[in-house]
């Protein structure tokens, strides 16, 4: 199902993650299902541990890949409600959650995605989201206030 071009791209994406210092992230190949996933652990400035996962869709890189926050699970907001209960939210910069409840972080929306965007940049947005999330936990203010400068254009 994967073209040579897609496989080459994924190998290169992995290589760039390593060379750019994003060594906690890798592109994994699932041998039994012949599927790909980019994932890894992320720790915030305060030292808390998170996990991010990007299942690679069949149309990658022309099709936008979703990014899920898989740990901690479930993920709670300041007031104790689950982040996934918001669904698509501008206040929290989230898109539709995964069927098993993982929160989908907004990196590029479909209307802005294009195939020149690297997974490295997607993970970078994930790291920024985590910092903003911790600001939200500390202050109770919407996450969107802390990511105003996250320009969507690459």
């Amino acid at each position: 199902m994967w073209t040579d071009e897609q496989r080459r791209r994924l190998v290169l994406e992995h290589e760039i993650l390593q060379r750019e210092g994003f060594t906690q992230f890798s592109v994994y190949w699932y041998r039994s299902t012949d599927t790909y996933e980019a994932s890894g652990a992320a720790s915030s400035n305060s030292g808390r541990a998170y996990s991010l996962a990007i299942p690679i869709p069949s149309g990658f890189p022309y099709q936008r890949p979703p990014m899920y926050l898989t740990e901690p699970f479930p993920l709670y907001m300041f007031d104790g409600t689950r982040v996934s209960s918001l669904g698509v939210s501008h206040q929290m910069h989230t898109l539709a959650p995964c069927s098993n409840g993982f929160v989908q972080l907004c990196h590029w929306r479909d209307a802005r995605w294009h195939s020149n965007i690297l997974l490295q940049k997607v993970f970078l947005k994930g790291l920024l989201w985590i910092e903003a999330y911790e600001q939200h936990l500390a202050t109770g203010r919407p996450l969107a206030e802390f990511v105003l400068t996250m320009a969507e254009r690459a």
Partner: protein
Amino acid sequence: MGDPQQQQMIREAMKAIAERKPGRSKLVYDKTKRTIVAVVEGAQTPRALNITADDADMFAVVTVSSRWLREQWPQIMRDRVTSTLFSSWDDGDAFTQCNLGIHPAPSIIQGAVLFGDGIEPPDGTQLRVILTPTQNSNLDPSTFVAPDGSTHCAEGRRTSNNSDEAVTAVFVDVQPALATRRAGILETSILSDKSVLVFGVGTGGAHAAIELAKCGVGRLILVDPDRLSVGNVVRHPGGLSQVGRLKVKVVCDLIRDKNPDAQILTHPVALTYANVETMKPLIAQADVVICATDNRPSKLLVNKLCIEANVIAVYGGAFRRAYGGQVLRVRPRQSPCHECFVAAMPEESTDIEVSSVADAEEIAYSDRPVAIEPGLSLDVLPIANMVTKLALMELLAGKPSSLSILKRDFDAPWYLWLNRPEPGTQYASWPPLSESSDEMTINRWYGIYFERDLACSACGDFTSALAASYGIDAASLETLSSLPSKE
């Protein structure tokens, strides 16, 4: 007007009037008889009202397909009669054979074509078309040439409430008639072997598909999963009587009513990665693909598939509330593709019209909805026309046509049109149309050149260029087994 002799005189007089030749008789309205009579020219008719050529359209008209009658000819020769159905329009002013088009009138009547006047039509026949052999070589619309070369003149008779009225019979040959009207600009049947695939048959896509069919494009493939809603009707060519039908079916019928010989395939499927295997063979059959969808993911998908299949694609889109629009023509690996366009002009490529709930959801968050703000049909049609014209130019490439001279005019890959200088956009300060001769204004097409990105991820070699920028040998990517694997 029951007197057959009188009727024959009237018919001859009508003919003379219609041809604006002086006849031996003319028609007058006889107030005492309260009817129209034919009188010999020069006769004194003091109390009569003269009828002029402008009044000549006085009989109802029955229209019969010549092609159908030629096919029926062996049966007519054998049985002397054949039945058919007619749409009855406008209180019996026009009877159109149902098989000529696809939209029947609310009222349908049974009719028959009879060979000779003495034949008894089947029960329930309300309209008769009676053929009489003629030696007259002057072919008018009421004359039919049979497959055996014999000629026949026809007259119609309408039976209602025990009265018998004359009806003018007209034969039509649909295909030659349509081709004749296109001839001169587009040589007959020059496009009949061409296929166009249209993704999205909303207002713009439907208009483009119908216009191409009118030009004589022989094969159209329509892809759209949506149904026609009441809200669509103010812009879409489909009408209220079609609400609820799949848009591909509505447009298919509109096309068949314009070009009955066009072959039309309809696919009510969404343009998503899940349906890629359905799309690929459709694209492979197409000479040109028109992408008239309004969201980025579907355009990027079409872009990738068309580049892979080496098929030319034309993308059309309206800006929000259709204050303007743009058209991009992509000749794979020769001109910039849609990804090149996105990279070169990020502002223009994301300014899209939000004309449906789905479009709005595409760009909205649930706690910050985007209003549905469709533009006017009037403002979408210039863009749809440009899409059609660019597609037409590609279909005619290499074929002799009077449109070939336009090649130099449609050289640029990207075209911009503004309906109004929308406040808040970079076009707000454009000068008024009437005051400008050398500055950009509304209501004009601008062809704009930009370069193809050789490192484009869709039409170039993005991976190699990117690898090189990291000092990685692109060839090593094929063999790099550095990806960690999991079971």
